[in-house]
């Protein structure tokens, strides 16, 4: 008969894992359920304010009111990489155009043609920090066709 100590040691390791991991998992669940209980009755907007901060959410609301859903905006960020991704998500489905031109743009000049026709500029300051918002004159540069959103109708 083969020795049973190796299977028993291995099963002991499994048991030790369960003794640690099950309480940790259930503790995580209790924490989440407690948080969920505290948010009962809160609207989606109120929950966002709790998680991301009321100043950030208020700034996003202001920008949403200023930029119609079918209008594009330029976006850039200050020092914290990725901050503009965070802000862009909260401004969806508005289309974003990077303030700086990227190497992949098929036609750099056309990109510049479009950029100057965008009225709105949003600057992401940092993750969870209120973004800055600017409005600027949108002009059709000489030699450029009007961008789709500038055309009447």
């Amino acid at each position, binding site marked *: 008969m083969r020795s049973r100590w190796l299977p028993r040691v291995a099963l002991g390791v499994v048991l030790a894992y369960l003794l640690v991991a099950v309480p940790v*998992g259930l503790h995580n669940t209790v924490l989440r359920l407690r948080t969920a209980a505290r948010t009962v009755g809160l609207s989606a907007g109120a929950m966002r304010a709790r998680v991301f901060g009321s100043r950030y959410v208020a700034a996003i609301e202001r920008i949403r009111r200023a930029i119609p859903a079918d209008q594009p905006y330029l976006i850039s960020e200050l020092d914290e990489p990725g901050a503009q991704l965070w802000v862009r998500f909260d401004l969806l489905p508005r289309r974003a155009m990077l303030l700086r031109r990227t190497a992949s743009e098929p036609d750099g000049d056309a990109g510049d043609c479009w950029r100057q026709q965008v009225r709105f500029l949003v600057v992401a300051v940092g993750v969870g920090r209120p973004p800055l918002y600017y409005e600027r004159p949108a002009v059709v540069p000489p030699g450029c066709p009007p961008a789709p959103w500038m055309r009447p109708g």
Partner: protein
Amino acid sequence: MTAGSVAANLGGVALFALPGLGLAELLAPLRRLPLPRRLGYAYLLGVLALAGSLFAASHLFGASLRRPAIVLLAVVPIVLGLGARAWRWRRRGPAAPVPVPGRAQRGRRQRILAVLALAAIIGICLGPLASALCAPLADWDGRMTWGPLAAYLRHEGTVDAAVLRDAHWWVFHPRYPPLVPLAQVMVQEAFGAGEDEQLYRAFYVAFWVALLLVLYDGARRAAGPRAATLATLCAALPPFLSFGGGGATSAYSDMALAAFYGAALVLLLLEPPSLPGGLAAGCLLAGAVLTKNEGALLAGAVLLLAALRLLRRLRQQKAGSGARSLGWLATAAAPVLAAVVLLASWRAAIPNRDDEDYFAVLHVFELVRGAFARLPVIVPLVLRWTFRWSDWLGFWSVFLVVMIAGHRFLQRPVARRMLVAGLIPAAIGWAAYAVSTRLTDIVGETWERFLLQGLVPLAIAFACALGHLLRRSGLLSPHPRPPTREPYFLK
């Protein structure tokens, strides 16, 4: 969190689960499973059938991503399923119990242990569900890639959104397969979600539940109920799978891919070959193709493993079964091919942006050179992320101990195939690291998600080893082997 948002979130899960159950009624290998084990496959099939059909209808025929189309797509499979059930009932009367693969008699102690394990798993799964229902989405890829894709598709009402097709707009990964974001759009449209209402969050958590149900079903077929229960409990516990970037609370597509991949593997490697089984597996593989870029590679790998199984069967069996077995493989491959063609057609009009295009930079020489030359960098990083305590609580250490102590389980071909299948996502990751221009970052961002993608087959192999150890240890009463038949795949 309001009662309405909770109801809509759960309705979002039912939107796919009910049509999926209807489809499962049409497919004998799924129909004969007990409801809990059927539910995992049904949910995945529902997502693929609804979102995949809407994808094709929108891209090929210009169908709008709005409520009438969604309701129609959801109702058809439900009606078909009910019709098939009624037809069978009228023909034969109430269905007699059919032997289920992996079903076995249990003693009282085993039942108590199983109930305790089930209670623990339900308790674990409640955590991500509660978190998803009350907290707004806050994960990077969900906010960077998948969420924006869903928002653009919903806003324009088409999968061929102009914002994707024009390179001036800042869109990350615009060519990523859109199945899961499209399903998210369906939930939001079906329940009329407002701007900040994230009624799709439970839809993502449900992939985690489906994955666990599929894992349990596969492990039970391969190793019996005792080892399957233990393996499923062990796999459910790592916090990364519940709360990590790619886990149940996130809006990544990795959990969905892992579930599609694992479910197809179970049906192709553990289920007796049949045309309905092949079709179900092929649909699940099509789901993998339409979920993430890696999906096409994983689908190809699964079909290859199924072909190896087929060759083995053909060598063992008498002549005449070859045509039927080939039909099984062909039925599995056909949906994959259709998904690849659909995805390629959709992508054709979408210019890439600033993404790394791995296939463009993937040359065999550089791949091989990078895979070896970068080992000193890759290995420590991979080890660090694999054994990260806060994410995995030592799960992979336990996995290694059990696999080494129970290595004799590898004598079974099915266990070997599952182990290989579990390592394929990691191999894909390794290939990406070999050519990536930002190695350190990308290992940290992706390695744990590759582990997740291979979780179902790895956990089934783990269950096989556990079953071997349980039998050898003498600690528990001898486990009755699956009684219906000695499965051919155990030979």
